[in-house]
């Protein structure tokens, strides 16, 4: 079956613009996660969804970052007023159930964001 998909694969934007990154999880997976991979910072957890709600937003770096999930499926990560330090690869993952570290997370290919 299809894996986790993300779009766009690459996004170049100008500083100050808003961007939206999309994630389509594996069908039937109830949990969805966003991570950021940047040089010097490694992989950082951003946010986790259980269904359409986000019990853990602790990793969002600032109030410019927000995310939503609709229909228990697609998720959108929005970055407002982008800054150069937002440049990174944004990875999405999904797992069958949620809230347990034992659930295997399956990752998408990522969206590479470049802020000029």
């Amino acid at each position, binding site marked *: 079956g299809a894996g986790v998909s993300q779009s766009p694969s690459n996004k170049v934007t100008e500083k100050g613009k808003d961007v939206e990154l999309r994630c389509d999880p594996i069908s039937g997976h109830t949990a969805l996660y966003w*991570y950021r991979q940047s040089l010097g910072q490694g*992989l950082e957890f951003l946010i986790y969804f259980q269904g359409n709600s986000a019990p853990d937003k602790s990793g969002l770096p600032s109030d410019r970052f927000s995310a939503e999930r609709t229909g228990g499926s697609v998720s959108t990560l929005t970055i407002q007023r982008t800054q150069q330090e937002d440049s990174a690869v944004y990875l999405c993952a999904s797992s069958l159930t949620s809230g347990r570290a034992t659930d295997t997370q399956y990752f998408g290919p990522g969206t590479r964001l470049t802020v000029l």
Partner: protein
Amino acid sequence: AQSVTQPDIHITVSEGASLELRCNYSYGATPYLFWYVQSPGQGLQLLLKYFSGDTLVQGIKGFEAEFKRSQSSFNLRKPSVHWSDAAEYFCAVGAYEKLTFGTGTRLTIIP
């Protein structure tokens, strides 16, 4: 809070040679441990995971890892590497729903 250390940023190994990638973790309870591999331009693929039981776990692509509680380590091994193993390898510890990753080890294979 949990943390993961991968002390080797970059390792170069000859094709056919054995490999060991180091991972040390810090976590107050029983750790859930993972190794992921990331090939250029690809997402993360799970190689293997440890939750409990036998401390030597087998994964895909001929990889194995050994959990040593006394050393807080979960090192990844492969007896004979192939050129296709060139990639970046990430160790992670799971707590609740969140994975905390190490900074990764880049593996280069030379002929």
